[in-house]
């Protein structure tokens, strides 16, 4: 009996030693996510998703026979911390590629490091300046603000509404949206007759909306993240503001409908496709990825997957695709990322090239309207 035990364990240990000797070491991928702090609503689903996807890839045998290993840190949304952690990932952890960080200021802070150290970075932040101008080692998965703006303006142009009021939140998200709105208005023959801001925590927006009413605008565009836009929707209803209201993709979550209640009815906004995955036509190339992601996230974390998680899903899957094409070194991943065409992910269909490291077209967004406390697609 004892002999049998020994021979068994000997066999097992031989097997173990063999597998260690023959399996290549895992490919280390660094993750920088703002899991705590003010940007936690972005960083938390991003980290969760990245972990979920990497685990699943490994369970299915890894990529080209090599496992992935995610080394992730919490940047708390702080650019200085993001920079330190990026250095740590590259120098101590010796990662092959980095995904993150969650916000544009953090991404801008670490770009010089990855450029110098030649490590591919897939940023999860939206600011268009991350990849414009193109930096050799920097890619991104979050949709540019400019795409969302053009969706709204195109719709307004079709409706022949040219006098528009804009209200933007006084944060980075709002000022970036405001820049885009002002830059693109002329191209669509739209004049901004009123331009004002609101504080992210202001309790009452009737003052701004009273001015909107006096400006005789034909439509109102609100650029912000919860809860400000929900308060604006409520205040607009109170004032009896009759003009159509458009919001940004910053409020494309069920939370907005919950906060604004009846006042949300009829509001239109450009949104990534995650929230309307089940409404998309069968022919939509992203449908398969979207449904898989939403269901998967629901199973793992008991809450619906959102856009932010989607950015991380795209980043991990793009790296996987690049490795599959034969690059498991930093330079190999970078070169192969640039060759990816028509990759149907969560944020859109990615086609990177040497001139375009954002990779998304206008089809990354759809225009949705809120009806009966749910989303419907605007045709």
């Amino acid at each position, binding site marked *: 009996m004892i002999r049998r035990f020994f021979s068994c364990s000997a066999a097992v240990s031989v097997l173990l030693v063999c597998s260690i000797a023959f399996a290549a070491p895992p490919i280390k991928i660094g993750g920088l996510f703002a899991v705590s702090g003010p940007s936690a609503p972005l960083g938390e689903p991003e980290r969760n998703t990245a972990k979920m996807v990497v685990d699943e890839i490994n369970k299915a045998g890894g990529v080209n026979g090599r496992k992935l290993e995610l080394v992730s840190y919490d940047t708390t949304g702080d650019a200085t911390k993001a920079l330190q952690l990026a250095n740590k990932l590259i120098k101590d952890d010796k990662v092959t590629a980095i995904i993150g960080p969650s916000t544009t200021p953090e991404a801008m802070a670490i770009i010089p490091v990855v450029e110098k150290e030649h490590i591919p970075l897939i940023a999860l932040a939206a600011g268009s300046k991350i990849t414009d101008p193109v930096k050799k080692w920097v890619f991104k998965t979050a949709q540019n603000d400019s795409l969302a703006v053009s969706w709204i303006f195109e719709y307004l142009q079709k409706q022949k509404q040219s006098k528009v009021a804009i209200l933007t939140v006084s944060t980075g998200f709002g000022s970036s949206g405001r820049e885009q709105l002002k830059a693109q208005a002329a191209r669509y023959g739209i004049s901004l007759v009123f331009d*004002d801001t609101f504080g992210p925590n202001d*309790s*009452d*927006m*009737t*003052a701004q909306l009273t*001015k909107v009413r006096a400006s005789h605008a034909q439509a109102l565009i609100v650029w912000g993240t919860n*809860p400000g836009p929900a308060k604006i929707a409520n205040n607009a209803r*109170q004032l009896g503001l009759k003009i159509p209201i458009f919001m940004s993709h910053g409020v494309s979550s069920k939370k907005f409908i919950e*906060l604004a209640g009846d006042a949300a009815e009829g509001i239109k906004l450009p949104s990534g496709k995650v929230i309307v995955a089940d409404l998309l036509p069968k022919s939509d190339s992203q449908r398969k990825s979207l449904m898989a992601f939403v269901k998967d996230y629901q199973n793992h974390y008991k809450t619906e997957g959102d856009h932010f998680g989607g950015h991380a899903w795209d980043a991990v899957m793009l790296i996987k695709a690049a490795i599959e094409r034969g690059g498991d070194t930093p330079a190999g991943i970078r070169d192969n990322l640039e060759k990816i065409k028509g990759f149907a992910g969560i944020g859109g269909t990615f086609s990177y090239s040497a001139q375009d490291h954002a990779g998304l077209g206008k089809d990354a967004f759809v225009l949705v309207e809120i009806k009966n406390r749910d989303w419907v697609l605007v045709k």
Partner: protein
Amino acid sequence: MQFDQILQYSLSGLSTGAIYALIGVGFSIIFNATGIINFAQGEFVMLGGMFTLLFLETLKLPLWAAIPCAIVASTVAGLLFERLAIRPLRQATPINLVIITIGGSILIRGLAMLSWGKDTHAIPPFSGDDPIAIAGATILPQHLWILAITVIIVIVNRIYFYHTISGKAMRACAYNRRAAGLVGIDVHRMVLFSFIISSAMGSIAGIIVAPLTMTAYDVGIMLGLKGFCAAIIGGMSSGIATVIGGLLLGVLESLGAGLISSGYKDAIAFIILLLILFIRPQGLFGKAESERV
């Protein structure tokens, strides 16, 4: 500038100002009983809203039952705060106590964040949300609730401080703590009372404003500071002066946002605060040595 616009700014300002007034009176009551500024006052405003949400959504109580429960719960929190954080250090200097209240506010906010998360939550209005038109301006039924409840609380406050024994005792403490103690007033009990009254008032303010502004774990910071401004304008009086201070602040803020720029909304409140502190530290209506209750 049209009349209906000015009217709209003023009406919006009055209802926001009423909230500042309620919070400001809470500051003054504690200041007068203890000589300290309770910077945790804003957190009781937050607790009012968040407890209402808890009783409404988690315990499924109807709104009319959830509100008194939330007031009681926040008041108990205020009582515990006094017992656990303020009373053990009663002999400490005011500056220590003020720092303790700041620490307490961070603790309460942190606990609220851990138990209710970082999301913003909506609370249904007390009686519908169909706008009421007044000469070209519109307000919501909730604005009327806010104004009416503020008036009632101010009247009850007045009756308490001038026509009941414990109210008079609290005024006596404000005039001179030592003399009040010498004539047999239990000063410690008055301090406890002051915390109970002001946390109850703070939570009421938080509850009546929540349907309009929504509530989250961090709404107490700004509302608390604005209430503090109102109390300073009113010269730390727990009576009508602070109420006027709050209303004035609300209207100026709203007019400033409407006529100048909404970007300066918060700046206006703090510029007023600084001006008052520089020019009339005794408050807008106070005599140099003012009666503070």
